[in-house]
């Protein structure tokens, strides 16, 4: 059975989703349990796979028993194993943490919600693991469609429209990707990533391949919300219901960023990307623009969630910039930042969801006095905020470290400046909130005589709080162990790819 782990990783939540949806018509209570089961098993499997990959190296799993160019294969190297672990962890922890809210908020359709939730995870897991260009598209669509509907379940006034806009942009993105794959297919006749990688070199100067690359990339960039193409992202992530927010916001864009890196390394080759198309400088500058614009637009927001969405835009800029600088250090930084960003965005959105219990809205003004009311939850929010800013020893610092180091190596001083600038802006962004939560007491409590005694501590329930605190601790641990992450997992693959 262990041989089938790669397939089971994706299949277990898939089967669980079907069972849940079927059962939800018969017995609603059992849904949560099955959903938990359906995510715990893949979590265990992904950890086992990571271990296996680290011991044995690359794993290739041939689905249906057909050899790759004809059948579909799953290719697991250390990097995607770790991304898989990140995805399953986030999904599982989020489900545990938000289960209470899901159960109350979607009580009459929880089966559907869990099913979509699991299928979203399935999509992402598949995207990360697959070694086939077209399979990636299908999985991408699974993740997208479930994402659309999860987003649309949010604020009834705005969510459907933002979701529909996401549908349009997402479809353009997916179609561009599909088109790019079509161009690759017409020139090489293959869809398997490794096979395409082997077939491409003689075609590097063909205009069709260049266009294919551009379209794949643009498609993926739309999906990950890279700066000029990000317009769907803020609305979509602002109005999503909070249990889904902490699932979608951390994972979707980051997984797509991973796809971009994967396209660059294992479908096309760095040689092609960095020398045949002399666009690397342009993309890095675009990434700089993304970072700055994301940060500036975040600065203009009063709604905390919306601000965070713009921060995501800017974080994506980090990853793209890092990946396109074109040396191993920066690429490692980009990969590390994917993992870190998953964790920190997750933590920040999860804590925001927990905070939302005690506030009326997501405006900064609503945050006043929260340090008194929910100290632990706010502490986790602070930790994640610090991580996004890039304060050591949280993990955000270390990916920035590698990114800047890579930029120094590559001589992209503009990128360094922009990275530091965005860190500084992030300080302003977050401390604005911290200050509000720390200094200002809500007006309703001002009636009472003493501030301290009157505000009752209404801490988040434990089922949410414990995962939250664990995640915050994980942020620090990932930071501390980022050296081993790089040395054991990322560096070998990246250097092998870049050589």
């Amino acid at each position: 059975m262990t041989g089938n782990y790669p397939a089971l990783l994706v299949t277990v939540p898939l089967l669980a989703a079907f069972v849940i949806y079927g059962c939800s018509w018969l017995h609603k209570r059992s849904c949560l349990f099955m959903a938990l089961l359906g995510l715990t098993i893949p979590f265990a499997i992904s950890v086992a796979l990571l271990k296996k990959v680290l011991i044995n190296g690359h794993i290739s799993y041939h689905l249906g028993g057909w050899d790759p160019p004809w059948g579909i294969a799953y290719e697991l190297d250390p990097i995607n194993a770790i991304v898989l672990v990140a995805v399953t962890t986030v999904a599982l922890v989020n489900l545990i943490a938000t289960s209470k809210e899901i159960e109350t908020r979607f009580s009459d359709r929880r089966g559907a919600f869990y099913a979509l939730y699991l299928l979203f995870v399935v999509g992402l897991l598949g995207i990360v693991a697959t070694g086939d260009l077209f399979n990636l598209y299908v999985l991408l669509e699974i993740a997208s469609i479930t994402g659309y509907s999860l987003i649309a379940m949010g604020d009834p006034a705005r969510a459907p429209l933002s979701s529909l806009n996401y549908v349009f942009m997402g479809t353009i993105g997916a179609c561009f990707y599909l088109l790019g794959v079509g161009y690759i297919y017409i020139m090489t006749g293959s869809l398997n990533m490794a096979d395409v990688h082997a077939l491409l070199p003689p075609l590097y100067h063909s205009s069709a391949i260049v266009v294919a690359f551009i379209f794949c990339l643009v498609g993926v960039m739309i999906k990950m919300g890279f700066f000029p193409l990000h317009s769907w992202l803020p609305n979509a992530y602002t109005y999503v219901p909070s249990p889904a927010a902490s699932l979608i916001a951390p994972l979707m864009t980051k997984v797509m960023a991973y796809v971009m890196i994967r396209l660059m390394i294992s479908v096309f080759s760095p040689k092609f990307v960095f020398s045949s198309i002399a666009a690397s400088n342009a993309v890095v500058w675009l990434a700089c623009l993304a970072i700055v614009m994301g940060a500036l637009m975040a600065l203009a927001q009063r709604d905390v969630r919306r601000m965070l969405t713009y921060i995501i835009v800017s974080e994506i800029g980090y990853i793209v910039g890092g990946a396109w600088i074109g040396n191993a250090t920066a690429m490692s930084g980009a990969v590390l930042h994917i993992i870190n960003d998953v964790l920190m965005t997750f933590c920040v959105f999860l804590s925001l969801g927990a905070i939302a219990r005690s506030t009326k809205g997501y405006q900064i003004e609503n945050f006043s006095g929260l340090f008194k009311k929910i100290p632990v939850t706010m502490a986790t929010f602070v930790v994640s905020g610090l991580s996004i800013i890039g304060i050591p020893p949280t993990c955000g610092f270390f990916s920035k470290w590698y990114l800047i180091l890579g930029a120094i190596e590559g001589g992209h001083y503009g990128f360094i400046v922009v990275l530091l600038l965005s860190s500084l802006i992030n300080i302003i962004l977050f401390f604005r909130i911290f200050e509000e939560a720390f200094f200002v007491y809500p007006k309703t409590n001002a009636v009472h005589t003493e501030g301290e005694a009157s505000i009752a501590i209404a801490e988040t329930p434990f089922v949410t709080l414990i995962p939250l605190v664990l995640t915050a601790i994980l942020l620090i641990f990932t930071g501390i162990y980022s050296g081993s992450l790089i040395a054991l997992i990322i560096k070998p693959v990246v250097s092998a790819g870049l050589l």
Partner: protein
Amino acid sequence: MDFLLTHLVAKYNFWLYIILMMIGLYAMIAKNNLIKKLVGMNIFQTAIILFYVSIGSKRGGTIPIVEHIAGGGEHAINPTRYVNPLPHVLMLTAIVVSVSTFGVALALAIKIYQRYKTLEEDELLTRIRES
């Protein structure tokens, strides 16, 4: 004329799919009505399907269903006689995806209409701003 024809036949499928796709893309971006955008999206997707199917076609090829040769298990099948089945397979999936997206998008459009009683983007935006 002959030369033109051979060149035309060689590429026109690829050119026309681009035109079709651009029609769809234009509708998606420029149209104001959400359902129109949706139609544009569908045209866009079909154009890509057209592209793939055009890849698959083969001069002198017939449909990719192997004709039964009684007891001829060892009989070699000449692949040039049949068109390339792989793009068809892929495009089945793409069609399914497009119809699924279409269904979800329609559901979303209905939800939007329920709330705002309009499907025009500019009117929607003004109404959101008002509320």
